[in-house]
């Protein structure tokens, strides 16, 4: 029974990690690609960690909780790296928050 749940969560995690990677390949530009790794992969890793907690918790050595820390670190570091990449891209193109925004995005508004 426990193995069933472990496999289920492993599958869920794997599927979401895969979706995140597909996003990286399919999405058109750098900024949209940032959305894949900050979101779809968090649930992917989350699923795998839940599976790990179930698996090692079920071996009779008491509850296994340090997987929670991985989640915590992931949630604090993923946005930082996304922010750094986005900001580098903005600076490389010479734009910042003080230039235009809107549906067309910064670059389009700048050129028009």
């Amino acid at each position, binding site marked *: 029974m426990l193995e069933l749940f472990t496999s289920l969560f492993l599958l869920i995690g794997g599927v979401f990690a895969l979706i995140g990677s597909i996003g990286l390949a399919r999405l058109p530009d750098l*900024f*949209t690609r940032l959305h*894949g790794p900050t*979101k779809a992969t*968090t*649930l992917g890793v989350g699923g795998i960690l839940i599976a790990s907690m179930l698996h090692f918790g079920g071996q009779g050595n008491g509850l296994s909780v340090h997987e929670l820390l991985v989640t915590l670190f992931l949630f604090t570091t993923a946005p930082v790296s996304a922010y750094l990449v*986005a900001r580098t891209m903005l600076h490389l193109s010479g734009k910042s*928050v003080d230039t235009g925004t809107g549906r067309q*995005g910064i670059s389009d508004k700048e050129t028009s």
Partner: protein
Amino acid sequence: MNRWLPQPLLSLCLWLVWLLLANSAAPGQILLGGMLAVALPLGTKRFWPDRPHVRRPLRLLVYFSVLLWDIVVANLTVARLILGPVRRLRPAFIRLPLDLTDEFAIVVLAHTLSLTPGTVSADLSIDRRTLLIHVLDLDDEAMLIARMKQRYEVPLKEIFAC
């Protein structure tokens, strides 16, 4: 209290993280973690010129549970967007005017927005009043801004009292 525990919340977090790392609640680990939780904030006091003023720690817990749920929803939303027709996405930058003044609160807000549906925070203006956000599929800018402000900024404002 204040002399030995300049930052009670940081100490509590350090202690919990230590226990999680050790993966046990044996008395020795509790004591060692406690010692570290006191020593580390004291040793790094200089790096925290103005510590975050958390007025309502309990509300912070509520906030994080809402956030956890939103992250799961966000994953499903983004997965759907990624697997759907990519050409129909309407990516855009929007600017979120900030009411928060506390730096730490802004960091928490920026993190939150990066982890929730279809938005990634990309830049903060020099005067710290505006957050630049990239949206994967923009539908209604005014509604999105109102939603972000209502769901995340208002509670953060209460928690950090700024």
